[in-house]
């Protein structure tokens, strides 16, 4: 439980969620390291999918390359593991061909924002209905810990031994500026918020981007003197963020360098791409 967000209501004790109906159990164990935040995101996503009530046959999960992009292999949906950075483009072809499919893209900060940056912004611009989950651990995990477009200045990685020099992207600001109609930031620490945010993102019609701050203890943690995953969560996710709601009562000075958490942008007016294409088709057919 976070210190800065009061739990709205007392949680009712309920039957533990049965993840197994969505998992490909024969493909487990997963490849993720102990303490990696990616598994927390996967679990929250499955609970969100369940809450939305989607059928497994109607979900298509597409990813690029990276530790985060290994997510589709473990879930019993229509799953596509593509190329580094290109997931939104493959997903666009799938969605436009079959607009009935609920398309979810799982990607890393390097995958989505470095090599895939151009695809990412243009997907947002089109506002094609899909949910893009950016697992944002501020590092390239799969290749062994190099800096990424979200690595904070001064952080140590295997390619920034003297401290990262380049300014990082603000993923959410970029998604919003590019045209995504649902933009949110969540963390792997605030898991209940994460689940709710993912549910809202999936339910939104249009391009939804959720940046999820999570942790790579093996590289980012170790190289930046955070010994454990829980220490990273504490420092980066709990102390490093503030909820949108709380921020309403805080001055910019009080917010300081903390990142906002929650739904940052939600536009239900702008037309979605496949709907627009259907309208174009009618015009072309003289209907």
């Amino acid at each position, binding site marked *: 439980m976070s210190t800065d967000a009061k739990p709205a209501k007392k949680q009712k004790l309920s039957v533990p969620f049965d993840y197994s109906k969505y998992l490909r159990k024969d493909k487990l164990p997963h490849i993720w390291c102990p303490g990696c935040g990616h598994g927390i995101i996967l679990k929250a996503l499955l609970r969100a999918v369940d809450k939305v009530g989607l059928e*497994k046959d109607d979900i298509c999960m597409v990813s690029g390359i990276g530790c985060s992009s290994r997510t589709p292999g473990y879930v019993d949906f229509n799953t596509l593991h593509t190329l580094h950075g*290109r997931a939104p*483009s493959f997903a666009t072809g799938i969605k436009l061909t079959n607009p009935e499919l609920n398309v979810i893209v799982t990607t890393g900060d390097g995958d989505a924002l470095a090599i895939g940056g151009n695809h990412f912004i243009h997907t947002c611009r089109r506002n094609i209905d899909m949910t893009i989950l950016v697992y944002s651990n501020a590092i390239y995990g799969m290749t062994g810990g190099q800096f990424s477009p979200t690595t904070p200045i001064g952080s140590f990685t295997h390619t920034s031994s003297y401290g990262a020099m380049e300014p990082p992207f603000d993923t959410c600001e970029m998604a919003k500026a590019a045209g995504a109609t649902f933009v949110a930031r969540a963390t792997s620490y605030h898991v209940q918020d994460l689940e709710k945010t993912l549910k809202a993102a999936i339910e939104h019609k249009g391009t939804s981007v959720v940046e999820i701050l999570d942790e790579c203890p093996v590289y980012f943690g170790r190289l930046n003197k955070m010994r454990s995953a829980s220490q990273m969560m504490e420092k980066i996710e709990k102390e490093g963020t503030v909820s949108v709601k709380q921020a309403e009562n805080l001055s910019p000075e009080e917010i300081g360098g903390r990142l906002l958490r929650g739904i940052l942008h939600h536009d239900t007016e702008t037309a979605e791409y496949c709907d627009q294409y259907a309208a174009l088709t009618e015009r072309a057919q003289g209907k």
Partner: protein
Amino acid sequence: MAGKTVRRLLQGNEACAEGALYAGCNFFGGYPITPSTEIAETLSRELPKRGGKWIQMEDEIASIASIVGASIAGAKALTATSGPGLSLKQEVLGYACLTEIPCVLINVMRGGPSTGYPTGPSQADIMQAKWGTHGDHPVITLTPSTVPEIFTETIRAFNLAEKYRTPVFVFYDEILGHMREAVELPEQGVIEVVDRAKPEGKPEDYNPYDTSYEVAPLAPFGKGRRFHITGLNHNDDGFPTNDSTKIDEGNRRIMAKIDNNVSDIESTEEYLMDDAEVIVFAFGSTARSARFAVNRAREKGIKAGLFRPITMWPFPEKALKKAADKAKSIIVPEMNLGQTILEVERVTGHGTIVGLQRVDGEPIHPTEIIELIEKHS
């Protein structure tokens, strides 16, 4: 059983678009580039009318990724480009080869390397078709040489893609892309159109890479068979593997499905070849000059013939070898610095193989070929 045939004066690129529509193409993803753009433009008008999908992506990588995605969702998908775009597409082409996703790529060849000569013809991408993406991979490349043939070869490209679950290329040069000729557009049903095999059996038993087939049926995403596709080496069920036996088997299998069916894929034209002593090996618009040259040589009493690969890859090894055995010399004109001549040398091992190469953005003129025929007759 000829149906109602429409005869139209079409540009090569328009004929290509017509061929795609005839073959049932219902998805186009592209990025504008000279001299291929008319294909995208034509389809942007025609596809919506027929309920098809058309999208202009942010670059060529995204374009081909979009068509591979579309094909996975069950579409018959096309992209069209030229040199610089072809270079960008290589990464995803390799993905489509390994994951065995049918799709068609048109490359209208212009001068290169780099931005080169965008409005001039070239035949310098022929080796890139074969070797462009990393790793060993299967390649089918068709090289039409007339506008009507662009129409029929585009249909054949879709048929081969669907049949063999692989990307298929159609390569022609800028001259063909922009020249106009009369094309007979037959009624639907006259020319064979192949659709990919549909999987049978229970959804839970479905394996997208079932090795009991030479080419396993590909189910579309979202129609009740949930499965996995990855660009990693994979098992029959589509999931990644580190098993060296499976990796070897998979890498060999995607090559074998093409190699074992060369006779089905191969297409050549042999013109006045029966008694030919001088063979001209030529494709694309160069083959048009070559045909003219061969006719002139015959008028002068020289036994010249034209060997024209319509399927360039897989290379028509047997047919060329057979033809070459009887020949005194082989002339290989091409708009590059000597690409297909390497294959002619490799396959025939002939003692007199003479290249004629141009890379100045001008077509090879018949007189240049006639001169060589005379010299080596």
